[in-house]
């Protein structure tokens, strides 16, 4: 419950008196405060700084460390204060949370230190107030990214990984050449051959001196054999490399689809196609075209150069800006080409023969190239031409900064990652040196001593024992309030959980449901009662609620006083639910099931005698229940005379 609201619980309970005259059934007993504590000031000593607050302030949030009995672990008997050896700055925020109900995140705090403190005090970070939540989340995300980066780089760089398969080692060697010398050698060899191949392609076309016959030949044709051998060698290396990568790839399908592998394939294909094809005149044209693709080998360098990769990645991430650039350029080109065409139509011998022909002029002008092969001659043409070149500058200049900033961001990110990695190495090295100092052992022993001392701090008092047994007082009071409401109306809250379903009705008022329905329900509930797993819990939990319970459990007398059978039925269910709840976890949430789970001392008046064993039998009586009838708590009398078919249920005890 919210902070301030808990303070109003006494008011809500007092107001419940308004239901009393209307209720037809007796109310359950209120949970008593065993030790009614006057509200007292608690001193919290956090690393020397003393904070003081009311006990009830802390108890507003009973599922945190300070609000529950967990803080007793930190109680210092000598100074009668709670000592926490934690950060006092952050504690200020935490204490303010109890006071105001809002948790704030101070900007100057380190995010992980803050998280640790929150975890220590058992506070969920999600309840940080709106004012500070965004900042908190941003910082947290940054931190997480940094951690992830670090983890990644750690994984990549730690040499001593436990036995990887041969395939995995190969893949790692390919991806990161610094892992072993062999990888490095491989890396440089392929790099060399890529360079050789590219240079070969270039030099092939250079005219290489004349041959007798007065014909200028390109080197490729003059030294055809040599070039062919070089080409073969390169392609062999590339093929081997590609096949090795294919073999080592963890996911072959994904590898085949990746950009780098496509480049690899495209780079070596022309050679094989050339081998296969005959030296046919027809297809040699096509063959020549294919050789163009050999230039793609230069892209293989991107494996070797990070900058190239970044550039490629930037272009990919700026796809939308590039698309916009292209689109707006296209629009402008079409407009201006049309205009220029019609403007120059009049002049004679104009080069602007058609609109598509004007495209070339427009593009050259907009990008401020201005080759001068097409020039407007009319005045209108010149005017529009100048407008065209001016607007070209603008249109191109607009998306470019976006692309540039993207590139810059990604580039710097990469720089930072590299920097971090470099720093980390140095840092770890220094830490290792410092650690091997002799102070290590001393610190250890000192820490152990403190721990022992802390463990000797006194334990629980009687009241704390009571508190640890079940729900907090506020929760039990709240439940009692809801229970009163149920009794007033004669209805009960529906419990969601099928296991702990308490779907029996509290029949006080026969107008509400007819008997058959009731029987049915009782049957159902009795079925649920059967699982005997509940009995051990019933017997083991002696402390909760009332000592009556354990006594009842042992009695086998048949109980009759079922003037309030339904209550008993429900309460027995409640007992079992209570016990189960406690054995699992003393959860303090007001879930539906817990609504019915109350330390139901309401049975006390009805079990004055020890022989009343509620939990054994309940006979559904009907309702001719007047309030007087219900208060009958006679010991041992047999079931009331009713004309309802007696359904005797034996609970699983």
């Amino acid at each position, binding site marked *: 419950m919210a902070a301030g609201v808990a303070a109003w619980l006494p008011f809500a309970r007092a107001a419940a008196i*308004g239901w*009393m005259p209307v209720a037809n059934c007796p109310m359950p007993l209120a949970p008593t405060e065993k030790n009614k504590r006057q509200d007292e000031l608690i001193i919290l000593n956090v690393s020397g700084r003393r904070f003081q607050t009311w006990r009830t302030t802390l108890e507003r949030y009973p599922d945190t460390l300070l609000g529950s009995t967990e803080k007793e672990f930190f109680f210092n008997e000598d100074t009668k204060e709670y000592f926490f050896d934690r950060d006092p700055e952050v504690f200020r925020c935490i204490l303010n949370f109890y006071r105001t109900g809002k948790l704030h995140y101070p900007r100057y705090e380190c995010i992980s230190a803050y998280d640790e403190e929150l975890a220590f005090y058992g506070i969920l970070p999600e309840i940080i107030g709106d004012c500070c939540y965004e900042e908190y989340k941003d910082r947290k995300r940054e931190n997480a990214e940094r951690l992830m980066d670090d983890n990644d780089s750690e994984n990549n760089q730690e040499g001593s990984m436990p036995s990887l398969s041969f395939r995995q080692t190969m893949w790692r060697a390919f991806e990161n050449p610094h892992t072993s010398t062999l990888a490095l050698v491989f890396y440089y060899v392929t790099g060399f051959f890529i360079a050789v191949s590219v240079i070969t392609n270039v030099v092939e076309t250079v005219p290489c001196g004349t041959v007798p016959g007065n014909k200028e030949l390109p080197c490729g044709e003059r030294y055809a054999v040599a070039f062919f051998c070089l080409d073969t060698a390169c392609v062999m290396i590339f093929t081997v490399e590609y096949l090795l990568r294919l073999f080592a790839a963890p996911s072959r399908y994904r590898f085949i689809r990746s950009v780098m592998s496509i480049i690899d394939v495209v780079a070596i294909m022309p050679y094989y196609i050339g081998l296969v094809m005959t030296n046919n005149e027809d297809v040699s044209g096509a063959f020549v075209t294919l050789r163009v693709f050999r230039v793609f080998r230069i892209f293989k360098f991107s494996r070797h150069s990070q900058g190239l990769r970044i550039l490629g990645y930037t272009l990919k991430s700026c796809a939308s800006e590039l698309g916009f650039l292209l689109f707006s350029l296209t629009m402008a080109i079409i407009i201006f080409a049309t205009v220029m065409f019609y403007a120059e139509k009049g002049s004679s011998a104009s080069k602007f023969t058609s609109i598509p022909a004007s495209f070339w002029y427009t593009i050259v002008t907009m990008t401020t190239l201005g080759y001068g092969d097409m020039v407007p001659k009319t005045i209108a043409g010149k005017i529009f031409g100048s407008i065209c070149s001016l607007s070209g500058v603008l249109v191109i200049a607009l998306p470019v900064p976006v692309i540039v900033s993207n590139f810059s961001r990604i580039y710097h990110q990469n720089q930072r990652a590299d920097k971090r990695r470099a720093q980390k190495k140095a840092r770890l090295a220094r830490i290792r040196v410092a650690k091997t100092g002799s102070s290590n052992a001393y610190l250890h022993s000192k820490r152990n001593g403190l721990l022992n001392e802390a463990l000797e701090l006194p334990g629980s008092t009687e009241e704390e024992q009571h508190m640890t047994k079940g729900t907090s007082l506020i929760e039990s009071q709240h439940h009692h*309030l809801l229970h009163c409401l149920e009794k007033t109306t004669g209805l009960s809250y*529906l419990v969601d959980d099928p296991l702990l379903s308490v779907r029996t009705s509290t029949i006080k008022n026969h107008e509400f449901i007819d008997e058959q329905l009731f029987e049915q329900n009782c049957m159902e509930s009795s079925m649920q009662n059967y699982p005997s797993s509940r009995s051990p819990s019933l017997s083991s939990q002696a402390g909760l609620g009332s000592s009556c319970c354990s006594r009842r459990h042992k009695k086998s007398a048949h109980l009759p006083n079922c003037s309030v059978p339904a209550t008993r039925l429900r309460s027995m269910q409640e007992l079992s639910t209570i016990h189960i709840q406690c054995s699992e976890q003393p959860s303090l949430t007001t879930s*539906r099931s817990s609504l019915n789970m109350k330390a139901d001392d309401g049975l006390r008046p009805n079990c004055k005698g020890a022989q009343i064993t509620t939990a054994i039998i309940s006979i559904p009586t009907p309702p001719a229940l007047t309030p007087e009838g219900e208060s009958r708590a006679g010991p041992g009398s047999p079931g009331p005379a009713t004309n309802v078919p007696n359904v005797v249920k034996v609970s699983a005890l």
Partner: protein
Amino acid sequence: MEMATVRHRPEALELLEAQSKFTKKELQILYRGFKNFGVSSFRECPSGVVNEETFKEIYSQFFPQGDSTTYAHFLFNAFDTDHNGSVSFEDFVMGLSILLRGTVQEKLNWAFNLYDINKDGYITKEEMLDIMKAIYDMMGKCTYPVLKEDAPRQHVETFFQKMDKNKDGVVTIDEFIESCQKDENIMRSMQLFENVI
């Protein structure tokens, strides 16, 4: 709904102690809780008094499944004795004093006042029906057994059968007190919240 002065200071502690049946310490505890809530947690509620909206919100925190606004409205009117649209600390304390420390007579009087919506000294069936519906609304939809349409009405009938001695269709304060005093259950449940503070 006028907000009183911007900062409403309650009566002196001694005065309240004399007027109500609480001790100084109890009043201190009550005030701390009251002030904390009336201050900044809810929108334009000025410190020192609680208006009906806030009151309804507070009360609905305790009954999450159902709709407690109607009943909170009636409750608010019962607490707001001077009918000025806001519950000051004095109203709050006086109300609680009756409920928690008052005699049975006083408590029954308070309950009668709660049921008597128009404060004319008579509880009619319609008034009772409104109250009853408001109470049932608080339970919400997910109840077992499922709420029948005429359940509140039936409940009202039972109530009138019990309380209305001369069968004239209204319940006066005397009939009410007399009938309640005869009913052991009611008497016992009146003592239920003695030690709430």
